[in-house]
């Protein structure tokens, strides 16, 4: 069950001709998730900056 399904690295990339589809889906899907993580983190930083500025000025 935990054996690798493919013999070598090229086969993993190719996947019997379907490699393009599989890897592009995973690449795009995972990068979307990753980017949304980055955006969320950036938002937190922006809000924190705003709060600090507000409290500094008042």
């Amino acid at each position, binding site marked *: *069950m935990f054996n690798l399904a493919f013999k070598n690295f090229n086969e993993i990339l190719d996947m019997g001709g379907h490699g393009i*589809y599989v890897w592009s889906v*995973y690449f795009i899907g995972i990068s979307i998730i990753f980017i949304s993580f980055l955006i969320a983190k950036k938002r937190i930083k*922006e809000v924190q900056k705003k709060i600090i500025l507000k409290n500094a000025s008042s």
Partner: protein
Amino acid sequence: MLGWTWGLLFAPQDAVQGNSYRIIFLHVPSVIFAELVYFFMAICALMHLVWRVKLAAYLIKSAAPIGAMITFIGLFSGSIWGIPTWGTWWQWDARITSTLILFIMYLGILTLHGSFSNLEKADRLMSILVIIGVVNIPIIKKSVDWWSTLHQPASISVSGSTSIDPSMLYPLFISVIGLGFTLISLGILSSRSYILSREKNKKWALKHV
């Protein structure tokens, strides 16, 4: 937590037989969560309207983009999957149509909330829309089923193409859980920023900088 969930997501890929079916490990979990996120939002909307819980509205607002994102991934991976297996990237099948409608609803909720300057009004109207929307989803699912049986009785069912073999089922199961944790952590992150930005005038906000 992050690294752990990512590890879970990647690991099952190697352990499985099959070629383009590998998309299933991204496709199925994302479609499952596309709906779960909506139900979560609906519960929050109910809480907001009935008990006036402010936090519930904040959660809806921060969950909606995530829902839209995951629905988009589901649709997108499904359509790419369709190219090698069905020969077409889009089909007016019952499930696809209803998922597309779900995606449109997420976008609608977001635009509606974005169009108000008074945020409390925006919260309340958004909750109303979310609740009406949750009534709509089962109706859409059913009516699309009736409709598509008329148009294309031999349409390919997405679930039917999966043979339930343990070597595929376990990784699928794990990847569902993995994506779940990923989304929860993403949700926590984005709701944290949103709550902070809404409550930035309160004194406690300063402590969390």
